């Protein structure tokens, strides 16, 4: 499946798809989207790259094992749940900063929770797919 067209296309598609994934992640609070879908789209981007260039190339490009995303994401989600407890609110209650940041919008613990979900989904999908495709692609 090493077609030159797919190879060239995927090189350009990868950053675009990743940007799109982040876009989907960030707009999730007001419009269709969210961490889960965003994470899936990002994983598809990497899978496409692996199909075009081979698994070894993708792994080399990633520079870290995808399963490392799982504990990092879980930790971010969990910590975002604990942050409200520091100011005396119950576990996992949503807290928002009053300032509006351009592009991203308002920042709050649910956003970080969603980022955690995003990372966990990438980690899980890539771990499963890369493990199964080991030696095939």
């Amino acid at each position: 499946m090493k077609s030159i067209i797919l190879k060239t296309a995927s090189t350009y598609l990868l950053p675009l798809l990743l940007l799109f994934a982040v876009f989907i992640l960030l707009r999730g609070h007001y419009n269709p989207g969210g961490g889960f879908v965003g994470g899936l789209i990002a994983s598809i981007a990497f899978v496409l790259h692996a199909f075009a260039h081979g698994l070894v190339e993708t792994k080399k490009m990633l520079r870290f094992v995808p399963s490392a995303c799982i504990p990092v994401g879980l930790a971010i989600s969990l910590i975002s749940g604990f942050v409200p407890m520091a100011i005396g609110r119950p576990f996992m209650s949503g807290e928002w900063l009053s300032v509006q940041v351009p592009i991203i919008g308002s920042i709050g613990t649910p956003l970080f929770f969603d980022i955690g979900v995003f990372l966990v989904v990438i980690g899980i999908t890539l771990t499963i797919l890369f493990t199964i495709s080991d030696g095939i692609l």
Partner: protein
Amino acid sequence: MLIAVLLGFVFAPLWNLLGRWIKGSFSWLPALLPAGLFLYFASLYPVTQNGPLLTSTPWIPSMGVNLDFRLDGLSLLFALLITGIGTGVFIYASYYLKGHRHLDRFFAYISFFMASMLGVVLADNLLLLIIFWELTSISSYFLIGFDHEAAKSRRNALQALVITGLGGFLLLAGFVLIGTVAESFSIAQLLGTAGSLQNHPLYGWMLALVCAGAFTKSAQFPFHFWLPGAMAAPTPVSAYLHSATMVKAGVYLLARFTPMLGGTDYWQYTLISFGGITMLYSAFHAMHRKDLKEILAYSTVAALGMLVFLLGIGTQQALLAAGVFILTHALYKATLFLVAGMLDHETGTRHIEKLRGLRKVMWPVAIAGGIAALSSAGVPLTYGFIGKDLIYDATLKAINWPWVLTAVALVTNILVLYAGFQAGIRPFTGPLPDHHRTLHLPNARLWLPACVLALLCLAFGILPALTNGLAGAVASAIANTPVDAHLAIWHGFNTVLALSGLTLLAGFLLYGWFAPPEGKLQQRWEHLSPESLYRKAGQGFTWFAGKYTRLLHNGNLRSYVFSIITFIILLLGTKILTGVHLYFDRRAVVGGLRLYDVVIFVVTLAAIWKSISTNSRITAVASLGVVGYCICLLFVIYSAPDLAMTQFTIDTLTVVLFVLVLFRLPRFLRINDKLWQDGILAALFGGLISLIALGALNEPTTKETSEFYAENAYLLAKGKNIVNVMLVDFRGFDTMIEITVLSIAALGVYSLMKLRISSDNKE
């Protein structure tokens, strides 16, 4: 008191952390823990004379479970035994297991056990009691299996855990029953309303369940066999857990429940018959054993039977006798175990025929063993004599059949005397074999605890009035009314004295004339003994599990799906046919059908047809992907963009995953055999789901939930996308757990695949 109980749990991991010093020259350090606790409980003795001491710390107040502790006579006796004998055992073990590479772990386990056991006897709440009760079973498992490299000790540890765990489970049921009926889990309150449970219609169940717990823990026939098996533990453990403390937890429980459940005919008959059979059976067994620890184990079971028997008689004399006998037995039996351990440690054998004349090389041990054996025999001037007097006094004054009970007690006492002499006197008398001449007196840390305990047997025997206060407090606590104890050596010439004399005479004659035969009798009846029945039950269970697994878990994914779907069809089908009235509105189904709905429908049908008619797996998977995309389009049309987006990405990834998996499957295989069978199943299932979906369309849906989210998503969570707000905020906790589960699944896939690859590499 809470701190006193928890201290052991705190120190248990500390011993492990301090392992290097404990294995070095500070092995005496852990003994300070029980010693300190002993002094603490001893200092509380005057307080308990004026009634029970109660403390309470809130724990789960909403469920009525608090860290309530009570210290009355009964608890105090047990607490003193646990910490007092504990001190001796800790000191003893520090030398007995000297140089063992897991000495620190041993102290951790045994501290853990001590704390759990203190919890059992001090808890004033039934649920708290059961927690500590189970903790003693678990720590006992670790201690029996301490020598974990020997298969026998692992097996016996598991056996003890299974038996006591089963009892604990039944006991929990009993406690829940009692707590529900009495509307309180507090022992203090239950004691306050004592007498009301006996007339309840469920009294039989309560009695049976509590007795099941107590009998398994205290090794009553037919559950007795785990105790001799538990002798695989190091001797300090046997001395501590399996003679002085843990096995008496069942006795403690029965004593504690005497005011609440006792006094009825059922109670009497159950306890007297179980106790009586146990003591006769195991005293007879003890006589035929030749291993020191086995002899002691069976005579311990006999003593436990005696205690249950006394509690069953239930008169004030019997309760007093039980209280005194707990102390008597703990003192002499712990001594005998420690002595047996020393002989084993020094000579390397526990066979009584190989151990003779050892008084010449280790006289303090001989003195300790001798006194303990005399005390177990009930010779005057030892504490055992007082205990035996009280037992005969109790059986003679029993309400029903005093002479039968007395005869049972007499026979048991004679046999126990024999067993005690075999273990405590025989190894020290006679000629010393040549190969034992090189032996010398072991370290004082070994023989001193045994000597102290033996001297206590003697001191209490000469001055029994010393224990009047404690014995009275114990009997009062059991009976729940004040009982005065007047222990004395001399009561004048009466039947009791005659019976004591008869016991001694018969026992001495037996010791002089009877030698245990080679174990042919045992072998003949071995296949009927409760232990082999237990083992057969275990084997049967494994056999059944194997068959069952092979039937249902046969590795064929297709048959899994087949049985799951069949089950669902049967379940839903019977429910729909019998209970649910279905009504369809034809207009709702056909009306409003638009052109693109029809197009999507046709494409879906075509894709499904392709997927079942093709012979290639890849084509089938791709067609299923098309079906998935069509459903996504439906979501888009019916305005569920979030769902559509997720479904779209998921479907893409599923197809990719499928294709990757197909690479690993054999290439040529007929995939559409059994077409009819699968077709019928699929049609049934699809039809059923369609029925339910159509039926659901006509149900008046409650809009409350969706309206709540629509109104509050922005107000409470500052988000406009309700789906996402639900995921990250309202139901954020669910999402948290879901991503955790997903992570575990990913790890599972990873480890399964890597495992296979590495085994491929090996080939």
